[in-house]
Protein backbone atom coordinates (compact mmCIF):
# COMPACT_ATOMS: atom_id res chain seq x y z
CA UNK A 1 0.00 0.00 0.00
CA UNK A 2 1.44 3.33 -1.00
CA UNK A 3 0.51 6.43 0.89
CA UNK A 4 1.24 9.11 -1.69
CA UNK A 5 0.32 12.03 0.51
CA UNK A 6 2.99 11.15 3.06
CA UNK A 7 5.59 10.30 0.44
CA UNK A 8 5.05 13.50 -1.52
CA UNK A 9 5.00 15.47 1.73
CA UNK A 10 8.44 14.17 2.66
CA UNK A 11 9.74 14.68 -0.88
CA UNK A 12 8.47 18.25 -0.84
CA UNK A 13 10.14 19.00 2.49
CA UNK A 14 13.45 17.63 1.22
CA UNK A 15 13.23 19.74 -1.93
CA UNK A 16 12.32 22.91 -0.09
CA UNK A 17 15.04 22.58 2.54
CA UNK A 18 17.56 21.92 -0.21
CA UNK A 19 16.35 24.79 -2.35
CA UNK A 20 19.73 25.50 -3.87
CA UNK A 21 20.32 22.00 -5.20
CA UNK A 22 16.71 21.76 -6.30
CA UNK A 23 17.04 24.97 -8.29
CA UNK A 24 20.33 23.91 -9.84
CA UNK A 25 18.95 20.55 -10.88
CA UNK A 26 15.73 22.05 -12.27
CA UNK A 27 17.62 24.71 -14.21
CA UNK A 28 19.70 21.95 -15.81
CA UNK A 29 16.54 20.38 -17.14
CA UNK A 30 15.12 23.76 -18.11
CA UNK A 31 18.22 24.48 -20.11
CA UNK A 32 18.09 21.14 -21.93
CA UNK A 33 14.39 21.31 -22.77
CA UNK A 34 14.49 25.01 -23.61
CA UNK A 35 17.34 24.39 -26.04
CA UNK A 36 15.51 21.44 -27.55
CA UNK A 37 12.30 23.39 -28.14
CA UNK A 38 14.16 26.38 -29.56
CA UNK A 39 16.36 24.29 -31.80
CA UNK A 40 13.69 21.94 -33.05
CA UNK A 41 11.16 24.71 -33.71
CA UNK A 42 13.73 26.78 -35.56
CA UNK A 43 15.31 23.91 -37.46
CA UNK A 44 12.03 22.39 -38.56
CA UNK A 45 10.81 25.89 -39.37
CA UNK A 46 13.81 26.26 -41.65
CA UNK A 47 13.25 22.81 -43.09
CA UNK A 48 9.63 23.62 -43.75
CA UNK A 49 10.55 26.90 -45.41
CA UNK A 50 13.13 25.25 -47.63
CA UNK A 51 10.77 22.40 -48.40
CA UNK A 52 8.13 24.92 -49.39
CA UNK A 53 10.66 26.68 -51.56
CA UNK A 54 11.28 23.46 -53.44
CA UNK A 55 7.95 21.72 -53.19
CA UNK A 56 5.91 24.71 -54.24
CA UNK A 57 8.10 25.27 -57.22
CA UNK A 58 8.36 21.64 -58.12
CA UNK A 59 5.42 19.76 -59.56
CA UNK A 60 4.51 16.56 -57.78
CA UNK A 61 4.86 14.78 -61.10
CA UNK A 62 6.59 16.23 -64.12
CA UNK A 63 5.83 14.66 -67.51
CA UNK A 64 8.07 15.34 -70.49
CA UNK A 65 9.50 13.65 -73.51
CA UNK A 66 13.13 12.76 -73.10
CA UNK A 67 15.33 12.32 -76.11
CA UNK A 68 17.17 9.09 -75.46
CA UNK A 69 18.34 6.09 -77.48
CA UNK A 70 15.84 3.26 -77.88
CA UNK A 71 16.40 0.46 -75.47
CA UNK A 72 15.79 -2.06 -78.21
CA UNK A 73 18.01 -1.72 -81.22
CA UNK A 74 16.73 -3.05 -84.58
CA UNK A 75 19.12 -5.95 -84.47
CA UNK A 76 17.37 -7.36 -81.42
CA UNK A 77 14.29 -7.95 -83.57
CA UNK A 78 16.11 -10.39 -85.80
CA UNK A 79 15.55 -13.96 -84.66
CA UNK A 80 18.75 -15.21 -86.22
CA UNK A 81 20.95 -13.09 -83.91
CA UNK A 82 18.93 -13.96 -80.83
CA UNK A 83 21.71 -15.89 -79.09
CA UNK A 84 24.58 -13.95 -80.50
CA UNK A 85 26.60 -11.22 -78.78
CA UNK A 86 25.64 -8.09 -80.72
CA UNK A 87 27.92 -5.08 -80.61
CA UNK A 88 26.51 -1.86 -82.02
CA UNK A 89 28.79 1.18 -82.09
CA UNK A 90 27.82 4.86 -81.97
CA UNK A 91 24.17 4.56 -81.16
CA UNK A 92 22.38 7.88 -81.67
CA UNK A 93 18.84 8.67 -80.62
CA UNK A 94 16.35 8.80 -83.41
CA UNK A 95 15.49 12.37 -84.29
CA UNK A 96 12.41 13.13 -82.28
CA UNK A 97 10.36 16.10 -81.25
CA UNK A 98 10.50 17.45 -77.72
CA UNK A 99 6.74 17.66 -77.67
CA UNK A 100 4.59 15.21 -75.75
CA UNK A 101 2.84 13.29 -78.47
CA UNK A 102 -0.63 13.06 -77.07
CA UNK A 103 -0.58 15.97 -74.65
CA UNK A 104 -4.24 16.90 -74.85
CA UNK A 105 -5.61 13.39 -74.16
CA UNK A 106 -3.14 13.06 -71.28
CA UNK A 107 -4.30 16.36 -69.83
CA UNK A 108 -7.94 15.35 -70.15
CA UNK A 109 -7.21 11.98 -68.61
CA UNK A 110 -5.36 13.57 -65.68
CA UNK A 111 -8.10 16.07 -65.00
CA UNK A 112 -10.55 13.22 -64.60
CA UNK A 113 -8.30 11.09 -62.39
CA UNK A 114 -8.96 11.08 -58.65
CA UNK A 115 -6.23 12.50 -56.39
CA UNK A 116 -5.13 14.90 -59.11
CA UNK A 117 -5.53 18.47 -57.96
CA UNK A 118 -4.68 19.77 -61.33
CA UNK A 119 -2.49 19.34 -64.39
CA UNK A 120 -1.02 22.22 -66.33
CA UNK A 121 0.56 22.16 -69.76
CA UNK A 122 3.79 24.04 -70.37
CA UNK A 123 5.77 24.80 -73.45
CA UNK A 124 9.43 25.52 -72.99
CA UNK A 125 11.16 27.23 -75.87
CA UNK A 126 14.79 28.24 -76.35
CA UNK A 127 14.84 31.87 -77.43
CA UNK A 128 16.96 35.00 -77.44
CA UNK A 129 15.96 38.17 -75.66
CA UNK A 130 16.68 41.25 -77.71
CA UNK A 131 16.70 44.76 -76.34
CA UNK A 132 18.60 47.41 -78.21
CA UNK A 133 21.97 45.91 -78.99
CA UNK A 134 21.79 43.32 -76.21
CA UNK A 135 21.07 39.72 -77.12
CA UNK A 136 20.67 37.17 -74.32
CA UNK A 137 19.90 33.47 -74.61
CA UNK A 138 17.19 32.00 -72.43
CA UNK A 139 13.96 30.14 -71.99
CA UNK A 140 10.45 31.24 -72.56
CA UNK A 141 7.89 29.15 -70.75
CA UNK A 142 4.34 29.20 -72.02
CA UNK A 143 1.88 28.49 -69.22
CA UNK A 144 -1.80 28.54 -68.42
CA UNK A 145 -1.15 31.30 -65.91
CA UNK A 146 -4.42 31.11 -63.95
CA UNK A 147 -4.03 27.35 -63.48
CA UNK A 148 -0.45 27.91 -62.31
CA UNK A 149 -1.74 30.41 -59.77
CA UNK A 150 -4.25 27.86 -58.52
CA UNK A 151 -1.76 25.01 -58.29
CA UNK A 152 1.52 26.65 -57.29
CA UNK A 153 2.42 29.81 -55.49
CA UNK A 154 3.77 31.50 -58.60
CA UNK A 155 2.04 34.76 -57.63
CA UNK A 156 4.38 35.00 -54.60
CA UNK A 157 7.24 35.29 -57.03
CA UNK A 158 5.71 37.88 -59.32
CA UNK A 159 7.28 40.93 -57.76
CA UNK A 160 5.81 43.43 -60.19
CA UNK A 161 2.53 43.18 -62.06
CA UNK A 162 -0.15 40.54 -61.66
CA UNK A 163 -0.98 37.14 -63.16
CA UNK A 164 -4.24 38.63 -64.49
CA UNK A 165 -2.30 41.21 -66.47
CA UNK A 166 -0.53 38.36 -68.28
CA UNK A 167 -3.77 36.48 -68.86
CA UNK A 168 -5.37 39.53 -70.43
CA UNK A 169 -2.51 40.34 -72.75
CA UNK A 170 -1.73 37.91 -75.55
CA UNK A 171 1.65 39.48 -76.16
CA UNK A 172 2.50 39.96 -72.49
CA UNK A 173 5.56 38.54 -70.76
CA UNK A 174 6.57 38.07 -67.12
CA UNK A 175 10.26 38.81 -67.43
CA UNK A 176 12.85 37.13 -65.21
CA UNK A 177 14.24 39.64 -62.71
CA UNK A 178 17.86 38.90 -63.67
CA UNK A 179 17.05 39.60 -67.29
CA UNK A 180 15.21 42.79 -66.37
CA UNK A 181 18.26 44.03 -64.46
CA UNK A 182 20.71 43.14 -67.18
CA UNK A 183 18.69 44.85 -69.84
CA UNK A 184 17.46 47.71 -67.61
CA UNK A 185 13.87 46.93 -68.36
CA UNK A 186 10.81 47.27 -66.16
CA UNK A 187 7.08 46.76 -66.32
CA UNK A 188 5.48 48.52 -69.26
CA UNK A 189 8.60 48.36 -71.42
CA UNK A 190 8.78 46.37 -74.63
CA UNK A 191 11.17 43.53 -75.41
CA UNK A 192 11.75 41.42 -78.49
CA UNK A 193 12.34 37.72 -78.55
CA UNK A 194 13.85 35.74 -81.35
CA UNK A 195 13.42 32.05 -81.97
CA UNK A 196 16.32 29.82 -82.89
CA UNK A 197 15.06 29.91 -86.45
CA UNK A 198 15.37 33.72 -86.42
CA UNK A 199 11.77 34.88 -86.25
CA UNK A 200 11.40 37.99 -84.11
CA UNK A 201 8.38 38.81 -81.95
CA UNK A 202 7.71 41.92 -79.87
CA UNK A 203 6.34 41.39 -76.36
CA UNK A 204 5.15 43.77 -73.66
CA UNK A 205 6.49 43.37 -70.13
CA UNK A 206 3.47 43.03 -67.83
CA UNK A 207 5.39 41.92 -64.76
CA UNK A 208 8.67 40.77 -63.28
CA UNK A 209 9.24 37.26 -62.03
CA UNK A 210 11.80 36.48 -59.32
CA UNK A 211 12.24 32.94 -58.04
CA UNK A 212 15.24 33.92 -55.93
CA UNK A 213 17.40 31.39 -57.74
CA UNK A 214 19.71 33.48 -59.91
CA UNK A 215 20.29 30.77 -62.50
CA UNK A 216 16.59 30.75 -63.25
CA UNK A 217 15.94 34.47 -63.01
CA UNK A 218 18.76 35.19 -65.45
CA UNK A 219 17.26 33.13 -68.24
CA UNK A 220 13.62 32.30 -67.69
CA UNK A 221 10.44 34.25 -68.37
CA UNK A 222 6.78 33.32 -68.50
CA UNK A 223 4.16 34.05 -71.05
CA UNK A 224 0.88 32.52 -72.18
CA UNK A 225 0.99 29.05 -73.68
CA UNK A 226 -0.68 30.28 -76.86
CA UNK A 227 1.88 33.03 -77.30
CA UNK A 228 4.78 30.56 -77.30
CA UNK A 229 2.92 28.25 -79.67
CA UNK A 230 2.49 31.21 -82.06
CA UNK A 231 6.11 32.26 -81.71
CA UNK A 232 7.25 28.73 -82.55
CA UNK A 233 4.61 28.41 -85.25
CA UNK A 234 3.23 25.27 -83.70
CA UNK A 235 -0.32 23.92 -83.28
CA UNK A 236 -2.40 24.18 -80.13
CA UNK A 237 -1.51 20.69 -79.01
CA UNK A 238 2.22 21.43 -78.94
CA UNK A 239 3.21 21.01 -75.27
CA UNK A 240 6.62 19.99 -73.95
CA UNK A 241 5.84 19.52 -70.27
CA UNK A 242 2.90 18.63 -68.12
CA UNK A 243 3.04 19.43 -64.41
CA UNK A 244 0.77 17.51 -62.10
CA UNK A 245 -0.24 18.48 -58.58
CA UNK A 246 -1.73 15.76 -56.44
CA UNK A 247 -3.97 15.92 -53.41
CA UNK A 248 -1.91 13.25 -51.70
CA UNK A 249 1.77 13.69 -52.38
CA UNK A 250 2.67 10.24 -51.04
CA UNK A 251 1.20 8.64 -54.15
CA UNK A 252 3.49 10.62 -56.43
CA UNK A 253 5.99 7.80 -56.99
CA UNK A 254 3.51 5.06 -57.86
CA UNK A 255 1.43 7.35 -60.00
CA UNK A 256 4.43 8.61 -61.92
CA UNK A 257 5.49 5.01 -62.69
CA UNK A 258 1.98 4.29 -63.91
CA UNK A 259 1.82 7.37 -66.15
CA UNK A 260 5.21 6.52 -67.57
CA UNK A 261 4.02 3.08 -68.68
CA UNK A 262 0.58 4.20 -69.79
CA UNK A 263 1.60 7.14 -71.98
CA UNK A 264 5.19 6.28 -72.87
CA UNK A 265 6.50 9.58 -71.55
CA UNK A 266 9.18 10.36 -69.02
CA UNK A 267 7.70 11.01 -65.55
CA UNK A 268 9.69 12.34 -62.61
CA UNK A 269 8.09 12.51 -59.20
CA UNK A 270 8.96 15.05 -56.56
CA UNK A 271 10.91 12.66 -54.36
CA UNK A 272 13.12 11.63 -57.23
CA UNK A 273 13.67 15.25 -58.16
CA UNK A 274 14.58 16.29 -54.62
CA UNK A 275 16.34 13.28 -53.18
CA UNK A 276 19.29 15.35 -52.05
CA UNK A 277 16.96 17.76 -50.31
CA UNK A 278 15.82 15.15 -47.82
CA UNK A 279 19.45 14.70 -46.76
CA UNK A 280 19.72 18.34 -45.72
CA UNK A 281 16.57 18.09 -43.61
CA UNK A 282 17.76 14.88 -42.00
CA UNK A 283 21.09 16.40 -41.06
CA UNK A 284 19.42 19.41 -39.49
CA UNK A 285 17.17 17.09 -37.48
CA UNK A 286 20.17 15.05 -36.44
CA UNK A 287 21.97 18.16 -35.17
CA UNK A 288 18.89 19.25 -33.24
CA UNK A 289 18.50 15.94 -31.46
CA UNK A 290 22.22 15.46 -30.88
CA UNK A 291 22.52 18.85 -29.18
CA UNK A 292 19.33 18.43 -27.14
CA UNK A 293 20.18 14.93 -25.99
CA UNK A 294 23.67 16.05 -25.02
CA UNK A 295 22.23 18.88 -22.93
CA UNK A 296 19.75 16.54 -21.32
CA UNK A 297 22.41 13.98 -20.50
CA UNK A 298 24.39 16.73 -18.79
CA UNK A 299 21.25 17.77 -16.92
CA UNK A 300 20.60 14.11 -16.09
CA UNK A 301 24.06 13.75 -14.57
CA UNK A 302 23.37 16.88 -12.54
CA UNK A 303 20.21 15.35 -11.13
CA UNK A 304 21.98 12.05 -10.55
CA UNK A 305 24.73 13.80 -8.60
CA UNK A 306 22.41 15.95 -6.57
CA UNK A 307 20.20 13.01 -5.63
CA UNK A 308 23.23 10.91 -4.76
CA UNK A 309 24.47 13.66 -2.49
CA UNK A 310 21.04 14.13 -0.98
CA UNK A 311 20.72 10.42 -0.25
CA UNK A 312 24.17 10.40 1.28
CA UNK A 313 23.20 13.29 3.53
CA UNK A 314 19.88 11.70 4.35
CA UNK A 315 21.22 8.25 5.30
CA UNK A 316 20.09 8.78 8.88
CA UNK A 317 16.65 9.92 7.81
CA UNK A 318 16.31 6.90 5.58
CA UNK A 319 17.23 4.61 8.47
CA UNK A 320 14.66 6.32 10.71
CA UNK A 321 11.95 6.06 8.07
CA UNK A 322 12.68 2.39 7.60
CA UNK A 323 12.82 1.75 11.36
CA UNK A 324 9.46 3.43 11.86
CA UNK A 325 7.73 1.35 9.22
CA UNK A 326 8.40 2.85 5.79
CA UNK A 327 9.27 0.12 3.30
CA UNK A 328 12.21 0.22 0.90
CA UNK A 329 9.75 0.98 -1.90
CA UNK A 330 8.35 3.94 0.05
CA UNK A 331 11.86 5.32 0.47
CA UNK A 332 12.59 4.81 -3.22
CA UNK A 333 9.36 6.58 -4.13
CA UNK A 334 10.30 9.52 -1.91
CA UNK A 335 13.50 10.06 -3.87
CA UNK A 336 11.98 9.17 -7.23
CA UNK A 337 9.25 11.73 -6.70
CA UNK A 338 11.91 14.32 -5.95
CA UNK A 339 13.57 13.52 -9.26
CA UNK A 340 10.25 13.61 -11.07
CA UNK A 341 9.23 16.91 -9.45
CA UNK A 342 12.57 18.39 -10.53
CA UNK A 343 12.00 16.96 -14.02
CA UNK A 344 8.44 18.27 -14.24
CA UNK A 345 9.20 21.76 -12.95
CA UNK A 346 12.41 22.04 -14.96
CA UNK A 347 10.69 20.59 -18.02
CA UNK A 348 7.67 22.89 -17.93
CA UNK A 349 9.94 25.86 -17.33
CA UNK A 350 12.00 24.63 -20.29
CA UNK A 351 8.90 24.60 -22.49
CA UNK A 352 8.10 28.15 -21.43
CA UNK A 353 11.68 29.31 -22.04
CA UNK A 354 11.71 27.50 -25.39
CA UNK A 355 8.42 29.10 -26.38
CA UNK A 356 9.68 32.53 -25.34
CA UNK A 357 12.91 32.15 -27.28
CA UNK A 358 11.13 30.95 -30.41
CA UNK A 359 8.73 33.88 -30.17
CA UNK A 360 11.76 36.12 -30.02
CA UNK A 361 13.38 34.48 -33.04
CA UNK A 362 10.06 34.58 -34.83
CA UNK A 363 10.13 38.36 -34.62
CA UNK A 364 13.67 38.80 -35.88
CA UNK A 365 13.68 40.22 -39.38
CA UNK A 366 14.90 37.80 -42.02
CA UNK A 367 14.61 38.86 -45.60
CA UNK A 368 15.80 36.93 -48.56
CA UNK A 369 15.24 37.32 -52.25
CA UNK A 370 14.56 33.61 -52.55
CA UNK A 371 11.52 33.86 -50.32
CA UNK A 372 9.57 37.03 -51.03
CA UNK A 373 6.73 36.08 -48.66
CA UNK A 374 9.05 35.59 -45.66
CA UNK A 375 9.98 38.58 -43.54
CA UNK A 376 11.08 36.98 -40.25
CA UNK A 377 12.87 33.78 -39.30
CA UNK A 378 10.62 30.78 -39.75
CA UNK A 379 9.47 28.95 -36.61
CA UNK A 380 7.49 25.77 -36.55
CA UNK A 381 5.12 25.82 -33.57
CA UNK A 382 4.14 22.20 -33.24
CA UNK A 383 2.46 20.93 -30.08
CA UNK A 384 4.15 17.58 -30.76
CA UNK A 385 7.58 19.04 -29.92
CA UNK A 386 6.26 20.27 -26.60
CA UNK A 387 4.90 16.82 -25.83
CA UNK A 388 8.21 15.25 -26.83
CA UNK A 389 10.06 17.87 -24.77
CA UNK A 390 8.20 17.21 -21.55
CA UNK A 391 8.38 13.44 -22.06
CA UNK A 392 12.09 13.85 -22.67
CA UNK A 393 12.46 15.74 -19.38
CA UNK A 394 10.46 13.20 -17.42
CA UNK A 395 12.19 10.19 -18.92
CA UNK A 396 15.69 11.58 -18.39
CA UNK A 397 14.98 12.58 -14.78
CA UNK A 398 13.40 9.18 -14.23
CA UNK A 399 16.57 7.47 -15.37
CA UNK A 400 18.75 9.89 -13.40
CA UNK A 401 16.67 9.34 -10.27
CA UNK A 402 16.32 5.61 -10.61
CA UNK A 403 19.84 4.55 -9.66
CA UNK A 404 20.29 6.72 -6.55
CA UNK A 405 16.78 5.94 -5.36
CA UNK A 406 17.34 2.21 -5.79
CA UNK A 407 20.40 2.63 -3.63
CA UNK A 408 18.26 4.36 -1.01
CA UNK A 409 15.78 1.50 -1.22
CA UNK A 410 18.51 -1.01 -0.38
CA UNK A 411 20.08 0.92 2.50
CA UNK A 412 20.18 -1.31 5.57
CA UNK A 413 18.87 0.74 8.51
CA UNK A 414 20.72 -1.46 11.02
CA UNK A 415 24.05 -0.55 9.46
CA UNK A 416 23.28 3.17 9.67
CA UNK A 417 21.97 3.01 13.20
CA UNK A 418 24.99 0.98 14.33
CA UNK A 419 27.35 3.31 12.52
CA UNK A 420 26.68 6.20 14.86
Amino acid at each position, binding site marked *: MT*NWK*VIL*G*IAKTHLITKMKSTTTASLGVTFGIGAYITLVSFMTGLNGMLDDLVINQTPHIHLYNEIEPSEQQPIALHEEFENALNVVHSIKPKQSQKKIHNALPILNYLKETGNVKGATPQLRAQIFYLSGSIELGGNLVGVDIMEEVRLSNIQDYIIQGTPEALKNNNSGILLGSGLANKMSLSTGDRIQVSTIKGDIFPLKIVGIYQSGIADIDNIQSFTNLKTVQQILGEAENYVTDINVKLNDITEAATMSRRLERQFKVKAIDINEANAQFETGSNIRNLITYAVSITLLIVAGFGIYNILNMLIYEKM*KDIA*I*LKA*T*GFSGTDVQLIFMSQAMIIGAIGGILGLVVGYGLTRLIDNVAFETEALPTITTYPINYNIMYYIIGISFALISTFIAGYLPSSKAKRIDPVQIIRGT
Partner: protein
Amino acid sequence: MSIVLEAKNINKYFKKPVLFHVLKNLNFKVKTGEFASIMGKSGSGKSTLLYILSTMDTDYEGQLFLNEELVTGKPNTLLSRIRNKHIGFVFQFHYLLSEFSVLENVMLPAKKLGVKSHSEIEYDAMEKLKMLKIDQLAKKRASRISGGEKQRVAIARALINNPSVLMGDEPTGNLDSYNAENVFQIFKQLKEDQGLSLLVVTHDIDFAKRTDRIIQMEDGQIINQ
Protein backbone atom coordinates in the same frame (compact mmCIF):
# COMPACT_ATOMS: atom_id res chain seq x y z
CA MET B 1 -1.01 -14.02 30.44
CA SER B 2 -0.41 -13.77 26.68
CA ILE B 3 3.03 -13.51 25.15
CA VAL B 4 3.83 -10.41 23.11
CA LEU B 5 7.31 -11.35 21.96
CA GLU B 6 8.99 -14.73 21.76
CA ALA B 7 12.45 -15.67 20.49
CA LYS B 8 13.19 -19.34 19.74
CA ASN B 9 16.71 -20.62 19.15
CA ILE B 10 17.99 -17.35 17.75
CA ASN B 11 21.48 -17.63 16.27
CA LYS B 12 23.32 -14.93 14.41
CA TYR B 13 26.68 -14.87 12.76
CA PHE B 14 28.73 -11.99 11.41
CA LYS B 15 30.64 -13.26 8.42
CA LYS B 16 32.96 -10.30 8.11
CA PRO B 17 35.74 -9.64 8.84
CA VAL B 18 35.90 -13.16 10.32
CA LEU B 19 33.13 -15.62 11.04
CA PHE B 20 31.79 -14.58 14.44
CA HIS B 21 28.96 -16.31 16.28
CA VAL B 22 27.46 -13.25 17.93
CA LEU B 23 24.13 -14.63 19.24
CA LYS B 24 24.15 -18.18 20.53
CA ASN B 25 20.87 -20.03 20.66
CA LEU B 26 18.77 -17.45 22.50
CA ASN B 27 15.36 -18.33 23.91
CA PHE B 28 13.12 -15.98 25.83
CA LYS B 29 9.62 -14.52 26.06
CA VAL B 30 8.20 -11.14 26.96
CA LYS B 31 4.70 -11.22 28.41
CA THR B 32 2.08 -8.65 27.57
CA GLY B 33 2.33 -5.74 29.94
CA GLU B 34 5.79 -6.72 31.12
CA PHE B 35 8.61 -4.21 31.55
CA ALA B 36 11.80 -6.17 30.85
CA SER B 37 15.35 -4.90 30.66
CA ILE B 38 18.42 -6.40 28.99
CA MET B 39 21.82 -5.94 30.61
CA GLY B 40 25.26 -7.14 29.66
CA LYS B 41 28.78 -6.07 28.95
CA SER B 42 29.62 -4.01 25.95
CA GLY B 43 29.89 -6.26 22.93
CA SER B 44 27.74 -9.01 24.40
CA GLY B 45 25.25 -8.68 21.54
CA LYS B 46 22.40 -6.67 23.08
CA SER B 47 21.93 -4.26 20.21
CA THR B 48 22.30 -7.05 17.68
CA LEU B 49 19.48 -8.93 19.43
CA LEU B 50 17.28 -5.87 19.57
CA TYR B 51 17.64 -5.22 15.82
CA ILE B 52 16.50 -8.78 15.17
CA LEU B 53 13.55 -8.44 17.54
CA SER B 54 12.53 -5.19 15.87
CA THR B 55 12.39 -7.07 12.50
CA MET B 56 14.90 -4.64 10.95
CA ASP B 57 17.56 -7.37 10.78
CA THR B 58 16.37 -10.48 8.98
CA ASP B 59 19.72 -12.20 8.64
CA TYR B 60 19.49 -14.71 11.50
CA GLU B 61 18.55 -18.31 12.31
CA GLY B 62 15.72 -19.32 14.58
CA GLN B 63 12.18 -18.07 14.96
CA LEU B 64 10.64 -14.85 16.14
CA PHE B 65 7.01 -14.52 17.18
CA LEU B 66 5.12 -11.28 17.67
CA ASN B 67 1.72 -11.57 19.35
CA GLU B 68 2.16 -15.32 18.97
CA GLU B 69 2.46 -15.04 15.22
CA LEU B 70 5.61 -16.09 13.36
CA VAL B 71 7.29 -13.11 11.70
CA THR B 72 10.50 -14.85 10.61
CA GLY B 73 10.70 -15.21 6.85
CA LYS B 74 7.93 -12.72 6.08
CA PRO B 75 8.49 -10.43 3.04
CA ASN B 76 10.08 -7.03 3.67
CA THR B 77 7.01 -4.93 2.92
CA LEU B 78 5.02 -6.92 5.46
CA LEU B 79 7.80 -6.54 8.03
CA SER B 80 7.73 -2.78 7.44
CA ARG B 81 4.04 -2.81 8.12
CA ILE B 82 4.52 -4.88 11.30
CA ARG B 83 7.17 -2.42 12.49
CA ASN B 84 4.89 0.45 11.69
CA LYS B 85 1.89 -0.93 13.52
CA HIS B 86 3.20 -3.11 16.35
CA ILE B 87 6.71 -2.04 17.29
CA GLY B 88 7.86 1.25 18.75
CA PHE B 89 11.61 1.73 18.72
CA VAL B 90 13.66 4.27 20.71
CA PHE B 91 17.31 4.54 19.79
CA GLN B 92 20.21 5.41 22.00
CA PHE B 93 20.77 8.44 19.85
CA HIS B 94 17.62 10.43 19.39
CA TYR B 95 17.04 9.95 15.73
CA LEU B 96 14.62 12.57 14.46
CA LEU B 97 14.04 13.97 10.98
CA SER B 98 15.77 17.29 11.52
CA GLU B 99 13.97 19.16 8.74
CA PHE B 100 10.53 18.43 10.12
CA SER B 101 8.79 19.93 13.11
CA VAL B 102 8.47 18.00 16.36
CA LEU B 103 4.79 17.41 15.66
CA GLU B 104 5.43 16.17 12.12
CA ASN B 105 8.07 13.76 13.41
CA VAL B 106 5.60 12.27 15.83
CA MET B 107 2.82 12.11 13.24
CA LEU B 108 4.82 10.48 10.47
CA PRO B 109 4.43 6.77 11.44
CA ALA B 110 0.68 7.27 11.87
CA LYS B 111 0.45 8.95 8.48
CA LYS B 112 2.29 5.99 7.00
CA LEU B 113 -0.16 3.61 8.70
CA GLY B 114 -2.92 5.63 7.05
CA VAL B 115 -5.77 4.48 9.29
CA LYS B 116 -6.77 7.73 10.93
CA SER B 117 -7.53 11.12 9.41
CA HIS B 118 -4.98 13.92 9.51
CA SER B 119 -6.77 15.78 12.29
CA GLU B 120 -7.17 12.62 14.38
CA ILE B 121 -3.46 11.90 13.98
CA GLU B 122 -2.60 15.45 14.96
CA TYR B 123 -4.80 15.17 18.03
CA ASP B 124 -3.16 11.85 19.02
CA ALA B 125 0.31 13.29 18.50
CA MET B 126 -0.49 16.29 20.68
CA GLU B 127 -1.80 13.92 23.37
CA LYS B 128 1.46 11.96 23.33
CA LEU B 129 3.48 15.17 23.49
CA LYS B 130 1.37 16.39 26.41
CA MET B 131 1.89 13.11 28.21
CA LEU B 132 5.63 13.61 27.83
CA LYS B 133 5.30 17.27 28.80
CA ILE B 134 6.76 18.62 25.56
CA ASP B 135 3.58 19.82 23.82
CA GLN B 136 4.91 23.37 23.90
CA LEU B 137 7.64 22.28 21.44
CA ALA B 138 5.20 20.89 18.85
CA LYS B 139 5.84 23.52 16.19
CA LYS B 140 9.60 23.73 16.65
CA ARG B 141 12.04 22.27 14.17
CA ALA B 142 13.32 18.93 15.49
CA SER B 143 16.90 20.15 15.08
CA ARG B 144 16.31 23.08 17.45
CA ILE B 145 15.49 21.28 20.70
CA SER B 146 17.68 19.81 23.44
CA GLY B 147 18.89 16.20 23.67
CA GLY B 148 16.53 15.28 26.50
CA GLU B 149 13.63 16.83 24.60
CA LYS B 150 14.60 14.93 21.46
CA GLN B 151 14.62 11.69 23.41
CA ARG B 152 11.08 12.35 24.58
CA VAL B 153 9.96 13.26 21.04
CA ALA B 154 11.40 9.93 19.91
CA ILE B 155 9.37 8.17 22.59
CA ALA B 156 6.22 10.00 21.51
CA ARG B 157 6.90 8.92 17.93
CA ALA B 158 7.41 5.31 19.02
CA LEU B 159 4.05 5.41 20.78
CA ILE B 160 1.95 7.14 18.12
CA ASN B 161 0.48 3.94 16.62
CA ASN B 162 -0.14 2.39 20.06
CA PRO B 163 2.31 -0.46 19.43
CA SER B 164 2.24 -3.91 21.05
CA VAL B 165 5.76 -3.50 22.32
CA LEU B 166 8.19 -0.65 22.87
CA MET B 167 11.86 -1.43 22.41
CA GLY B 168 14.67 0.84 23.49
CA ASP B 169 18.41 0.57 22.92
CA GLU B 170 19.93 2.51 25.81
CA PRO B 171 17.23 5.16 25.61
CA THR B 172 18.73 6.94 28.61
CA GLY B 173 22.30 6.34 27.54
CA ASN B 174 23.18 9.94 26.89
CA LEU B 175 20.78 11.69 29.18
CA ASP B 176 21.63 13.32 32.50
CA SER B 177 20.31 11.58 35.60
CA TYR B 178 17.38 13.94 35.86
CA ASN B 179 16.19 13.26 32.30
CA ALA B 180 17.01 9.55 32.61
CA GLU B 181 14.78 9.36 35.64
CA ASN B 182 12.08 11.22 33.76
CA VAL B 183 12.19 8.70 30.89
CA PHE B 184 12.06 5.82 33.34
CA GLN B 185 8.97 7.29 34.96
CA ILE B 186 7.33 7.71 31.56
CA PHE B 187 7.99 4.05 30.71
CA LYS B 188 6.68 2.88 34.04
CA GLN B 189 3.58 4.99 33.64
CA LEU B 190 2.94 3.60 30.16
CA LYS B 191 3.19 0.08 31.50
CA GLU B 192 0.90 0.79 34.43
CA ASP B 193 -1.68 3.02 32.71
CA GLN B 194 -1.83 1.42 29.28
CA GLY B 195 -0.47 -2.06 29.84
CA LEU B 196 2.31 -1.49 27.32
CA SER B 197 5.00 -4.16 27.01
CA LEU B 198 8.57 -2.84 27.13
CA LEU B 199 11.96 -4.30 26.36
CA VAL B 200 14.83 -1.96 27.14
CA VAL B 201 18.58 -2.40 26.83
CA THR B 202 20.41 -0.48 29.52
CA HIS B 203 23.75 -0.18 31.27
CA ASP B 204 22.14 1.62 34.19
CA ILE B 205 21.80 -0.90 37.01
CA ASP B 206 19.46 1.36 39.00
CA PHE B 207 17.21 1.62 35.98
CA ALA B 208 17.26 -2.13 35.40
CA LYS B 209 16.62 -3.03 39.03
CA ARG B 210 13.32 -1.18 38.98
CA THR B 211 12.01 -3.08 35.93
CA ASP B 212 9.97 -6.28 36.22
CA ARG B 213 12.72 -8.52 34.98
CA ILE B 214 16.39 -8.34 33.96
CA ILE B 215 17.67 -10.45 31.10
CA GLN B 216 21.41 -10.82 31.62
CA MET B 217 23.58 -11.40 28.54
CA GLU B 218 27.18 -12.43 28.16
CA ASP B 219 29.11 -13.34 25.02
CA GLY B 220 25.96 -13.76 22.96
CA GLN B 221 24.21 -15.96 25.48
CA ILE B 222 21.50 -15.32 28.04
CA ILE B 223 22.95 -16.29 31.37
CA ASN B 224 20.09 -15.24 33.56
CA GLN B 225 16.46 -14.21 33.05
